[in-house]
């Protein structure tokens, strides 16, 4: 079978099981694809040596749940012995001394790490344009950005350079690039996946999660990487979420909320129309669509800006070049901006007005969601107000990331799970739909997403590179 890299996870696992092809063949096809297209895309910061990966694929125990599956990992996840840079020159030659828990679970499940993917440096962004190693290009149109900060992971999946990938989201960084690249991004409940070994951005919202080709794929990967970790005091100890085997056939009785505020003035017309069409699809499947009045997202933007930048300013204090990496003169502009604003909002005289105030408004955001979820079972809306923006769109923008992710900041601040799935196209660029539920409701939103996917064919489209 040619072009095994184009398979979904489900198809790849079945193919290996039925001995239609081998794991090394699958891995090899991915490497061929990387060699063919990555010079155009720049999805990867580090590509694992092909021979090493093939050897691992040969030796892997075939009974493992992800045996032989090539996975691309966002470059803020540490993997022992591999270069880990967070796409910043500060960590240009840093070789990790330990492996993050999420990656360890993937390796123990038999997955084959083929590379570390490009990102906005330190995850500071929604475009991957602030990478110190050049932006990643959107496979659908290489004059456009893939989104961020997990842009490399999203591009790698959309371009079939790998079968599955892992990203992380602080507010939008899994879902938004998945939307811009026409694939599935699943941001779990905060604490569902361990943050141990993931370079911290905003400790109180960072969430590792899968970026994959289909809803089923992302659900399966989540079942492997989720789970309590004693090394992460914020990881939740609800039972590891199991891959739901019970899918649903319709949405009768389901109430889906559609917030008015999720259609801001900045929203692109095609995005709005695609979202409304998706709402119609849900209606046809039996759901009730309820218009919601939610707390104005402008507050979430302010809260997120303050909290994230404050935590960033502290989390990046360990990078001084003494024990590892280069010194602080290697920080680029975006990191400097964020560290400075964070230091400012925590500094004496401003703590009450900014940091503490933001944490109080965060309570209002959490309370608002709790109230909304009394009226509806899940909330839908566009993932991003636009489709993929052209290269250069972020230059000189002091708050590009925070403004771009306005539709996801509220749910991220509340620690809620959310999924983005393809729901249309505009000028050849994908449009994403987000579905958000209360904490721990991944099974519900996955089921809704899967049903939508099986009633549409956007997820079957692939970019022509």
């Amino acid at each position, binding site marked *: 079978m040619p072009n095994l890299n184009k398979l979904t996870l489900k198809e790849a696992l079945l193919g290996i099981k039925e001995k239609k092809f081998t794991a090394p063949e699958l891995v090899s096809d991915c490497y061929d694809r990387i060699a063919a297209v990555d010079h155009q895309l720049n999805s990867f910061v580090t590509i694992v040596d092909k021979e090493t990966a093939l050897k691992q694929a040969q030796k892997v125990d075939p009974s493992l749940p992800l045996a032989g599956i090539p996975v691309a990992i966002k470059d*803020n*996840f*540490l993997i022992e012995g591999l270069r*880990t840079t*967070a796409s910043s020159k500060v*960590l240009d030659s*840093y070789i*990790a*001394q*330990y492996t*993050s828990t999420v990656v360890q679970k993937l390796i123990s499940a038999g997955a084959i790490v083929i590379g570390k993917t490009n990102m906005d440096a330190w995850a500071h962004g929604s475009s991957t344009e602030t990478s110190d190693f050049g932006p990643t290009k959107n496979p659908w149109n290489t004059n456009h950005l893939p989104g961020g900060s997990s842009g490399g992971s999203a591009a790698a999946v959309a371009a079939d350079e790998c079968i599955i990938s892992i990203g992380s989201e602080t507010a939008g960084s899994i879902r938004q690039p998945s939307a811009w690249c026409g694939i599935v991004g699943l941001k779990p409940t905060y604490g569902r996946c361990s*943050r*141990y*070994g*993931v*370079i*911290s951005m*905003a*400790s*109180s919202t960072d969430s590792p999660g899968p970026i994959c080709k289909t809803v089923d794929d992302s659900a399966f990967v989540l079942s492997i990487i989720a789970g309590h970790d*004693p*090394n*992460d*005091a*914020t990881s939740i100890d609800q039972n590891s979420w199991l891959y739901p085997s019970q899918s649903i056939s319709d949405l009768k009785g389901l109430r889906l909320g559609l917030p008015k505020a999720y259609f801001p003035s900045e929203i692109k017309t095609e995005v709005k129309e695609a979202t409304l069409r998706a709402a119609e699809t849900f209606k046809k499947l039996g759901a009730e669509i309820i218009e919601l009045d939610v707390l104005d997202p402008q507050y979430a933007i302010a809260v997120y800006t303050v909290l994230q930048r*404050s*935590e960033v*300013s*502290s989390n*990046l*204090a*360990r*990078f*001084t070049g*003494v*024990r*590892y990496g280069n010194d602080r003169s290697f920080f680029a502009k975006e990191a400097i901006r964020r560290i400075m604003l964070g*230091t400012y909002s*925590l*500094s*004496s005289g401003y*703590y009450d007005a900014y*940091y503490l105030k933001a944490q109080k408004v965060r309570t209002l955001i959490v309370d608002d969601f709790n109230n909304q979820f009394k009226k509806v079972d899940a909330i839908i809306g566009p993932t991003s107000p636009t489709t993929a923006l052209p290269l250069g769109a972020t230059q000189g923008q002091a708050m590009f990331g925070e403004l771009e992710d306005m539709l996801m900041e509220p749910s991220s601040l509340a620690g809620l799970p959310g999924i983005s799935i393809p729901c249309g196209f505009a000028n050849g660029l994908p449009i994403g739909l987000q579905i958000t539920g209360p904490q721990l409701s991944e099974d519900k939103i996955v089921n809704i997403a899967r049903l939508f996917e099986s009633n549409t064919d956007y997820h079957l489209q692939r970019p022509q590179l």
Partner: protein
Amino acid sequence: MKVTPIIGLEVHVELKTKSKMFCGCDASHFHAQPNTHTCPVCLGLPGALPVPNKTACDWDIKLGLALGCSINRNSFFERKNYFYPDLPKGYQITQLQKPFAINGKIKVDGYDIRINRAHMEEDTGKSVHMTLDGKDVTLLDYNRSGVPLVEIVSEPDIPSAQVAKSYLNKIQQIVRYIGISDADIEKGSMRCEPTVNLCIDDKYFTPLVEIKNVASLTGVLNAIEFEIKRQTQEYIDSNIVKSDTNKTTRGWDADKSLTFLQREKEGSADYRYFPEPDIPPIEYSDDEIEAIRASLPELPDQKIARYKSYNLSDYDANLLADDAVFSAIFEKALNNSTDFEFAKFVTNLFIGPLKTISLEIEKINPIFFKNIFEHKKELSSTAIKQLILDSYETGIDPLEIAKSKNLFQVSDTGKIEEIAKKIIADNPKAVADYQKNPLSIGFLIGQLMRASAGSANPQLAKEILEKLLK
């Protein structure tokens, strides 16, 4: 001019937990090879996360209770942000708004010294400054990074350098008593920083001075005394009074016996404290606090009071209570007796011959002490001292040893009179000397002792000779 010293003490106590505060590295770092007890967490590697040590938190509360503190049931950790190479994360995880323990009080030299707080935090690594190949460098060892510390802050209630030293002694004693730290100042498991200023004429206050680098209890005493003198003179010379912005830090130079200015404070440092997002908040239940309280041993002050109730002197009571292990051994020998004389007897043995050897509680047999006590009139004081040591070493009943070594003194007055009469008859010159000078009886006593092969009770011998020679 009336000068009233105002002294506060900040003490850091290194807990002797097995593992560090936020990771599983071995917390014992003294003399370990550099950077051999480190991990991603205490080395501040990218992506590492802290998880608090339950025992360390329990011990902070235990110490708080021993210091008479109230315990904050609800508490959390915070980040104190500043840059220094020995602080690997660029922030220290500590407690600011909600320390585990607050508002305590201990009595020192008759003074009530209030404790503001006893909170939990992590230690930094160690830096060594040296010149290598002509360049000034700093060498860093992170074995100590992340070791649990309790910071005890007193109110400025301490009125003199001497009381400061006593306060530190007391803290050291309590901490050792409850078994949470070795509190060894030389080894650095207890560190202190005094803050000193003066009240002049009950009206004016001199600027606050924090003194760093005091490495011994004597050092604390000397540094504070020096600082009091220095501030007094400075006030006389300059009349500068305390303000919100003129607190300074001075280092103690033990060699030169002076404090020197370390840096001017341009306002206080901005540590940008905020709650630690990587560690969820902590809530201790009433039951848990009570269980910790119940695990407290009898504290030194209580023990001293109890010993004094056995009619022991202040000095003896303090000496016996000073070390928890030593006092436990003493009490095993005492075996719940309430007899004042017996208590005094055992005390004298403990602060006498038994203080010279290293004691193990298993080898103490209370019956031995009782036996010697009951026969003490028949034994010389030298014999008693030897017997207690011998019976401890060999485990043989002292009465048997005394019999076999013929140590029992004869107290039978009849027998002694017999020997005395013979001595008087045999020594007419000595008798004549005695008639002239009663103090010369010593010779006759000596003769009697020799005649009895040392077994006569010398006091009785003297009495009987005097009676016969009247």
